[in-house]
């Protein structure tokens, strides 16, 4: 193999930038991430965590929490069921809309599954491997936001 061949191979090799490969010559910016908070009844925490996990979510934390009683009287009478769970998930910005639509539908249709969810932007993460883990980036795999029905942004 001569020097010219080596140069040609280098030129043909897909360029890497920040752990992401440029296959078609276009620069791919990293997907933005968000922190999703979902507050639901504690009994439904696993259900919602599993639902969210279907959207390329690799890191979720379920924290046991308490809702604040609506009135002091209800609390004194023990009529308030305040056991809640806070699910903290790292989600991709491009899948956020699909996740919110799914959650909105489930909040209305699942019995006892009423809840609230909100997201806050995540501004930094250190380490390429960590970022790839959080964004579920896998080399050579098609983008789930484009390929799956649930990942389609409307």
């Amino acid at each position, binding site marked *: 193999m001569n020097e010219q061949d080596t140069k040609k191979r280098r030129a043909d090799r897909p360029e890497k930038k920040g752990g992401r490969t440029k296959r078609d010559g276009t620069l791919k910016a990293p997907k933005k991430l*968000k922190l999703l*908070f979902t*507050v639901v009844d504690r009994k439904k925490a696993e259900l919602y965590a599993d639902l969210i996990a279907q959207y390329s979510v690799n890191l979720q934390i379920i*924290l*046991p*929490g*308490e*809702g*604040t009683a*609506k009135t002091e009287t209800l609390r004194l009478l023990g009529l308030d069921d305040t056991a*809640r769970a*806070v699910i903290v998930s790292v989600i991709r910005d491009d899948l*956020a*809309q699909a996740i*919110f639509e799914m*959650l*909105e539908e489930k*909040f209305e249709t699942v019995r006892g599954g*009423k*809840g*609230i*969810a*909100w*997201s*806050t*932007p995540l501004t930094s993460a250190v380490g390429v491997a960590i970022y790839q883990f959080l964004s579920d980036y896998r080399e050579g795999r098609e983008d789930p936001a484009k390929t799956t029905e649930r990942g389609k942004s409307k």
Partner: protein
Amino acid sequence: MTFSHECIVCIVNTGFSDAVMDAAREFGARGGTVIHGRGTASQEAERFFGISIQPDKELVLILVPRELTDPILYALYRAVGLKTPGQGIAFSLPVDQVVGLSPLSLGENEEKKTDGANP
């Protein structure tokens, strides 16, 4: 960039979450979620500032319309701030999307907003 809602996070000593909610409700908050936690602080800093940190904490998450954030934060500062037994700190995070808020609560907030504009 501004959004319609913000998430107020208030970290207080255990037992003060009711005081947090009382102060927040006074300025239009509807409900919150309490998470139990354990605080950590530099012992050297504790000695320097002459304060002691109770390790058991409660973290209260309150989702509020943006226009209510400042009055609620100020109310929390006064009711459960660092100079009170609650020894609380409060801050807000931007919220770019939200689902699950009842239309009723949205309507009430609109009313409060109008009231605030014409005191």
